[in-house]
């Protein structure tokens, strides 16, 4: 389910089935890494919204967590607060989806699962390959979700 009133209404009615919060982690950098951070942010946003379409009955897609790439400590400590709040509510699983590899190294500090995928250069592809590349990535990500769910049952 998405962060829109209609979906939230549905969420409130069937919240026992929605046990997974998905938080896209979206870096913002200026100067040097600006374009790269845009690519990561773009890719992770598309990926998660596509994923939501496949698994909407069990996941709530939280608005993306944007952070300054140059302030990793702040980014982690803020995310910890979000995480505490989500786990306090009924969510059993918190999944972070990101193209920023730094999060993989910080995963130990978080209770949720960091799912990292490389951002692919969509801007260099034609429409058809974009769509099929994305489908492929979404399928991989989906399998990771399904696997994680299975592990805990």
């Amino acid at each position: 389910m998405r962060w829109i009133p209609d979906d939230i209404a549905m969420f409130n009615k069937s919240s026992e089935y929605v046990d997974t919060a998905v938080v896209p982690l979206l870096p913002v950098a200026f100067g040097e890494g600006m374009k790269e951070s845009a690519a990561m942010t773009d890719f992770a946003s598309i990926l998660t919204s596509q994923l939501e379409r496949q698994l909407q009955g069990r996941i709530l897609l939280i608005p993306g967590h944007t952070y300054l790439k140059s302030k990793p400590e702040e980014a982690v400590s803020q995310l910890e607060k979000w995480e505490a709040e989500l786990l306090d509510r009924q969510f059993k699983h918190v999944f972070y989806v990101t193209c920023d590899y730094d999060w993989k190294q910080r995963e130990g500090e978080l209770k949720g699962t960091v799912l990292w995928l490389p951002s692919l250069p969509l801007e260099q592809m034609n429409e058809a390959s974009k769509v099929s590349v994305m489908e492929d990535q979404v399928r991989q990500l989906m399998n990771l979700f399904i696997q994680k769910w299975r592990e805990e049952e």
Partner: protein
Amino acid sequence: MSKNRVSRRQFLNYTLMGVGGFMAAGMMMPMVRFAVDPVLKAGAEGDFIATKVKVADITNEPQRVDFNFDQKDAWYESEVTGTAWVYKNENGEIIALSPVCKHLGCTVDWNADKKNPNMFFCPCHYGLYEKDGTNVPGTPPLAPLDVYPHQEKDGILYLGKAQPRGGA
């Protein structure tokens, strides 16, 4: 640079179902749309959309068929990719099922669960459906999968708007 921009935007239109897409255009004339909408809707009911599948290529094994169409809801209009599971049943009739789980809307997959072969399986809460779309009692879904009406034109499969079949 600006060319890339356009294509990225188009890409979003293709891929983000129900989101975005021609938002600006939609927002400019909400009143007109409001007045016209019921008429458009009535017309849309009878619309069949061409798939890329030849009727002759449809087998007994459900295959995934994607098709594109414009979707209008309130002030959004976007090009959307729909999906159907298509196969021929024992009587040779074409069956086209919606992949949207009747429980909470996840996408069901054919033959994806090893313990339940030859069934439609929903990964979210393990809903199950028979090959004909009938929901398996004891799993969360309470209704069979929706069915797309279909037509054949020049050997190509056309699909209409998915219709519910009512409880089993």
